[in-house]
């Protein structure tokens, strides 16, 4: 049987369709987890800030499309938005801001102390260790592809030329490598907790 808490949050999101201000409770419930998730995936506090704002802006604009009723469903729906934005960011290097702009929102600047607070919130030190260890475990082809694309920021065409493979093969190597790194990050207890 579903608990009151399980039902409550999904209902808050549904209620916010008719009462927009009810969205605040939904935001408060998930803001920390979404920011933590995005910081750990981007390892970039500024990008994570913008992605967090766009995630909630899209959730606010699209709340009429949420069809669930439980906390789990509401969280899954929200993190689905975050993942889509993250995928777009990883692929293009650009943070989408369409919903933020359409709502006429201002993304608040980071205060001087926020960098340290966010790094602490996300446990970045631990995440960096995990990523470094997992990077070393990637097979040679994937490691080189990820290095060229992510660290050297080369376009896929150039990555393919350097590796003497097709562009499609280069994309596949980078993609598999990043998936392996992402899986390692997901295993960090606080991240797993944030996503469930």
């Amino acid at each position, binding site marked *: 049987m579903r608990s009151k808490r399980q039902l409550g949050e999904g209902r808050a999101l549904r209620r916010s369709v008719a009462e*927009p*201000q009810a969205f*605040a409770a939904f*935001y408060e419930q998930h803001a920390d987890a979404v*920011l933590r998730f995005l910081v750990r995936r981007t390892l970039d506090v500024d990008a994570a800030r913008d992605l967090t704002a766009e995630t909630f802006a899209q959730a606010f604009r699209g709340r*009429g*499309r949420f069809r669930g009723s439980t906390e789990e469903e509401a969280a899954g729906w929200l993190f689905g938005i975050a993942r889509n934005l993250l*995928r777009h960011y990883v692929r293009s290097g650009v943070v989408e801001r369409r919903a933020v702009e359409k709502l006429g929102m201002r993304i608040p600047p980071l205060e*001087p102390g926020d960098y*340290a607070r966010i790094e602490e919130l996300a446990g970045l030190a631990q995440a960096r260790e995990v990523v470094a260890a997992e990077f070393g475990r990637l097979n040679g082809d994937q490691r080189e592809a990820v290095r060229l694309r992510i660290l050297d920021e080369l376009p896929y065409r150039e990555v393919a030329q350097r590796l003497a493979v097709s562009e499609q093969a280069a994309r596949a190597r980078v993609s598999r490598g990043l998936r392996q790194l992402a899986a390692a990050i997901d295993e960090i207890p606080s991240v797993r907790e944030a996503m469930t």
Partner: protein
Amino acid sequence: MSDAGTRPRFLDDLGHELARVAARDQRRGARPRSRARTAVLAVVATLLLATVAGAATGTLPLPGSGGPHFVTRDATGSFAPAVVRELAVLARPRTAQDSMGSAAAFVTGAGSPAPGSSLRVVPGGPMPGQEHATAISLPVWLLPADGGTVSMQVLPEGADGPASAFAADAAMVESRRARMTVGDDLVGLAPNGIRSVTATLSDGSQVRLQVHDNVYGARLAGSVSGVSFDR
């Protein structure tokens, strides 16, 4: 002094900003778009365009589609033999699931298709392991249109009309122009013998989609710049 260990100020500020937007919407009585409302708006927009541009010829080119046409009249005929030769699914036996019912009259303005002519098909989805595509569940319909062409219509469940539609002849099917996008969804026709297609997204990434009943479809993480048949 360390600033770590407390909630980032940014999150409080963002919460205030969202609250400001929510309060503004509450004052205006604004409501977000539901799927049903979006579908209805799409239908109204499509029909409005069709009414204006289709008056003379009965057809309306879809933006960026490079050939396929929206059909505004006579969907009661049959498929041309050349189209049936390209698309074997058109010759398959019909079942009760293939009947469009009253939706067709709204779509074409010319009454329901001849009995046993329309088909409901399930598009082939992304091949396993495709990163930039997910399966779609939109019902896709095929029915005869002007000159024996095949009209493909994406009809959201419960909607009175299609989210989008086009008609194609055999040459369009063979030249890969028989496709359309509905929001982030891509659907298209592939001739007999094609078991998969590769869609190229505007950022250069590619996704492979299976073909089922001569139809492929998927929700893509980006706009489509081209589709090729895997031969």
